[in-house]
């Protein structure tokens, strides 16, 4: 199959499905006369979105900023921690129960505690929630990557009398990169979800979570859904950016290039 046709199909097929779903949705809502508080029609949502684009964008930006900051802080912390754990077995073993606990507990449930801790008029609690949510997948995946060195590569470097630092630089780090990016991709969605949901538990009145709550409270259901659209777009942007990062020529090539 030609590249162009393949590309057209990759974009076209989901687009057709998406359009069909929206049409079906519109037809169902208008045909059955479903009330707006149950599900508003896509056309109404689109109208609200167009009328309030500025407001929705501002709210999305507020949430995105917290998510991005949390993603950055959580990723840096996870990389440092994974480096320490890879170099020092004891650190990994010591951190293990804590990481497992963090992985099984939805971190947003700590949001009320963090608001009390960092103040309800600051964004800090939301950033912290996002950062912790991000930490786990990045840490776990990166550490696995750092520990996964093919025996043949280990032998190769030893045979060539490479120093430990050379082995790290030329084999361990590049080999761990795809694992890191897998973690980062998962983390990017988690960052947005966590930052948004944390807004439901308090804090300043900005961001998508707060906007959805107040739109529903004032019975503006279509507007609430317009904010949801904003949340979907924000999540997609985060996912797309982290996915593109991996494709950068010097980021270690395509994931399919590995084993």
């Amino acid at each position, binding site marked *: 199959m030609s590249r162009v046709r393949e590309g057209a199909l990759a974009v076209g097929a989901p687009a057709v499905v998406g359009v069909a779903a929206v049409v079906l949705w519109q037809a169902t809502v208008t045909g059955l006369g479903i009330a707006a508080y149950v599900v508003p029609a896509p056309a109404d949502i689109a109208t609200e979105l167009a009328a309030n684009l500025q407001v929705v964008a501002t709210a999305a930006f507020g949430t995105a900023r917290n998510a991005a900051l949390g993603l950055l802080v959580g990723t840096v912390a996870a990389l440092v921690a994974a480096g320490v754990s890879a170099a020092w077995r004891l650190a990994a073993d010591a951190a293990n129960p804590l990481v497992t606990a963090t992985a099984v507990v939805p971190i947003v449930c700590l949001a009320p505690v963090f608001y009390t801790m960092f103040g309800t008029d600051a964004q800090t609690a939301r950033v912290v929630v996002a950062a912790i949510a991000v930490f786990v997948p990045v840490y776990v995946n990166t550490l696995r990557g750092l520990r996964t060195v*093919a025996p*043949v*590569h280990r*032998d*190769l*470097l*030893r*045979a*060539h*009398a*490479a120093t430990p630092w*050379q082995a790290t630089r*030329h*084999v361990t780090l*590049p*080999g761990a*990169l795809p694992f890191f990016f897998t973690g980062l991709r998962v983390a990017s969605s988690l960052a947005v979800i966590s930052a948004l949901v944390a807004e439901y538990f308090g804090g300043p009145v900005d961001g998508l979570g707060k906007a959805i709550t107040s739109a529903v409270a004032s019975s503006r259901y279509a507007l609430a859904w317009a904010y949801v659209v904003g949340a979907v777009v924000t999540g997609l942007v985060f996912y797309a950016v982290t996915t593109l990062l991996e494709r950068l020529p010097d980021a*270690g*090539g395509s994931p*399919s*290039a*590995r*084993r």
Partner: protein
Amino acid sequence: MSAVVATGVGRVFGPAGGAGGTVALSDVDLTVAAGELVSLIGPSGCGKSTLLRLVADLDTPTSGSLTVFGKTPARARADQDYGIAFQQAGLLPWRSVQANVELPLQLHGASRAERAARAAELLALVGLTDFAGHRPDQLSGGMQQRVAIARALARWPRLLLMDEPFGALDEMTRERLQDELLKIRAETGAAVVFVTHSIPEAVYLSDRVVVMTPRPGRVVADLEIALGSPAERAARGIALREDPAFFERVSTVREALHAGEAGLPARDRGAAGAPDRAGR
């Protein structure tokens, strides 16, 4: 000076010195002269890879002594006296073909220009000049193996250790790479220790074939092949593969291999340092 001298080398895995351990090698004597190509052949699990790893200082013997160019294997490794090619090509997938060949030079501080020049030379030697910029996953298995051999040669080693480098290849590719190896050897003059499962391959490539028994691995026969110098052999190619003298050597090796497997005292079984030499 001999490239490799092993005297009474043993390797026991697991609990040292006895019960429960796996005796991979026992009392192995082996001498590889400088510039000589010696094949190790024997049934699966007889310790061929283990022996090669001991020479390469990727592992240490539990008994006996081993020298590489008169030094300890550790010293020889530090001095980069040998190059090694594994059964898996073991290329770094995130590096280009050229950068893979350059790795050993890069690890030892060669300048960018030196590296590029040497890589170009080696890629020409293995016939992959046009693929310098490719990624390993864009190459066939045989091409990857050639890159691995080029990489092993990067620092002009006096000894080349090869563990079934052609094991995963089809017969045609295999024969072509064998010819290439003979050519490379004629050009570099390096000693080669070559592990293989293939009797014809061993006979075609080698000056000497060393036959090993199943576990615990021991040397049962040390056979002189004497089918001409590497350059002569490479030049004869297919004619040599069809020469009756070639088949005769193949039979000799096969008999030694089967005798060793059956645990019979092979007629070529030699005492250490004084192996009987088959052939003319």
